């Protein structure tokens, strides 16, 4: 069973003469252990695609199945819980809470998870992302790269099955970018998760399993 399956999903904004088809009817499947990259010029609909996939907005038409469950039949509370439990977001704008230190960002997840589950060891994550020395810093006291890595750590912390990353390497130098992407690849391949990454950096595509290109609301598979 695929992690996510999109069937004939499209997204329109406005109506009549102002109608914009941000996403043309699209079919898409993400399986366990797959690392997928989405490239394309800005304004092509990548973010719209990612937000629909992440259940942050509803499609105009079509259905999205997460673990075989039809999300269009859920209410917004159930979708919120699904996001909390299954999704990890790495956002372009930082997904860190400004008044929490890096360590406390993890604590929030522990506090708010309903079911007691073994969260990924935060120390291990901090080491992996080279954040041990700034674990008690607030986001405003982190460098751009550290902040991005902290955001990735936060996204991975609740052991999500699906990781959605919107340009996770945007503020990193190429060495760090390589490290982050190989980490995402490792996460996907070793622990059987699905990772979708929007990126501009074509050098990073080598580590991905599939590459899709988005252009004017059409999604085409490249690899």
């Amino acid at each position, binding site marked *: 069973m695929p992690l996510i399956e999109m069937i004939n999903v499209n997204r329109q904004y406005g109506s009549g003469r102002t109608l914009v088809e941000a996403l043309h009817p699209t079919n898409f499947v993400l399986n366990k252990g797959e690392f997928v990259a989405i490239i394309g010029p800005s304004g092509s609909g990548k*973010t719209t695609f*990612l*937000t629909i996939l*992440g259940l*942050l*907005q509803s499609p105009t038409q079509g259905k999205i199945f997460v673990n075989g469950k039809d999300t269009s039949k859920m209410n917004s*509370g159930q979708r*919120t*819980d*699904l*996001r*909390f*439990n299954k*999704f990890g*977001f790495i*956002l*372009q*704008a*930082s*997904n*860190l*809470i*400004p*008044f*929490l230190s890096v360590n*406390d960002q993890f*604590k*929030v997840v522990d*506090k*708010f998870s309903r079911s007691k589950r073994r969260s990924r060891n935060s120390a291990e994550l901090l080491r992996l992302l080279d954040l041990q020395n700034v674990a008690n810093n*607030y986001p405003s006291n982190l460098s751009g790269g550290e902040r991005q890595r902290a955001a990735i750590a*936060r996204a991975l912390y609740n052991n999500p099955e699906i990781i959605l990353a*919107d340009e996770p390497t945007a503020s990193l130098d190429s060495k760090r970018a390589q490290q982050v992407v190989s980490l995402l690849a490792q996460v996907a391949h070793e622990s059987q998760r699905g990772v979708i990454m929007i990126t501009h950096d074509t050098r990073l595509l080598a580590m991905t399993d599939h590459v899709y290109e988005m252009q004017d609301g059409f999604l085409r598979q490249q690899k």
Partner: protein
Amino acid sequence: MFLAIKEILHNKMRYLLVVFTIFLISYMVFFLTSLAVGLARENRTAVDQWDAKTVVISGYANKSLVASTIPQNSYQDYDKGKDVAKLGQVSVVSQLKDSKKKINTNVFGVDWKSFISPKLIDGRLPEKNHEVVVDDALKNDSIKLNSQIKINGSSKYYKVVGITKNNSFFATPVIFTNMDVFRTMKYGSSRTKNISTLVFKNNKKVNATGLEQISIKDLINHIPGYTAQVLVFSFMIAAMVIITFLIIGIFMYIITIQKISLYGVMRAQGIRTARIIESLFYQILILTGIGAGLALLLIGVTQFFLPKTVPFYSDWLAYIVLTLAIMVMALLGGSLSMRRVLKIDPLSAIEGE
């Protein structure tokens, strides 16, 4: 709770302002309350001491004790048993011997054996005509046990042989005399057997022409100026409490609006709106709790530094009730922001709106 506390600690200055505002408002509310209760008590403690049910006053007196006079033939039929007491009241000016200072006081003429006879905290009950019992508030004017006082410019002195406390009426302290001394002061002679009122400890009904029976509550409410004074203070206190609602409402609304994008991020991460709202209300509880708590501390300290003549009375039950009222108002104020939080779209986190 976790989010609420972490955020307050991280933005100390911002939330300190909220605490400080709550502190000032609460302190003002408590201070006004203390004055209101203090002033009200000065009007009535002597009446409260009786622990009685009703009084009978003259029909023309418009329920005002100070205007009532009842002649002997009107009251003698009802003055039976130990649950009934005669009281004479007259407003007088007292003077300590060898002092020029004039002090407004009340004279209460009582039978020393009746149930409205003052409870002493020092000294003894009078045995002779020129012996009196005074309220201990008069010690602020140096009148104490064994003092010699002049009443209404009389040529002879009255000796203080007993001290009582919490005996104040119409905002002036009470001097207790026997009925004869009272009659001489008010009517010029002790042969006139008039009294001001009959006080009933029980619910005995009196129906007589020219007399009116009223409850103690009625009697207090008709002390001139009493109701108006209580009303003014109540309005001020209520207004302050309602202002709390607005101030917290506006403060929290502004802070909430500043955090909309952050809330978007939290929503995108799958943190439920209920958690965010919960955090908002925890914050309000914490901030008002600290503010009102500090105000309570300060009001506790204040009473030690106020001059004794300020009618300040610490009513802790009222403080607690008002603290709760302030908290409820603050929480209601927080609900102004709730609508905004409920409308937060997690999408805004990604699109940076």
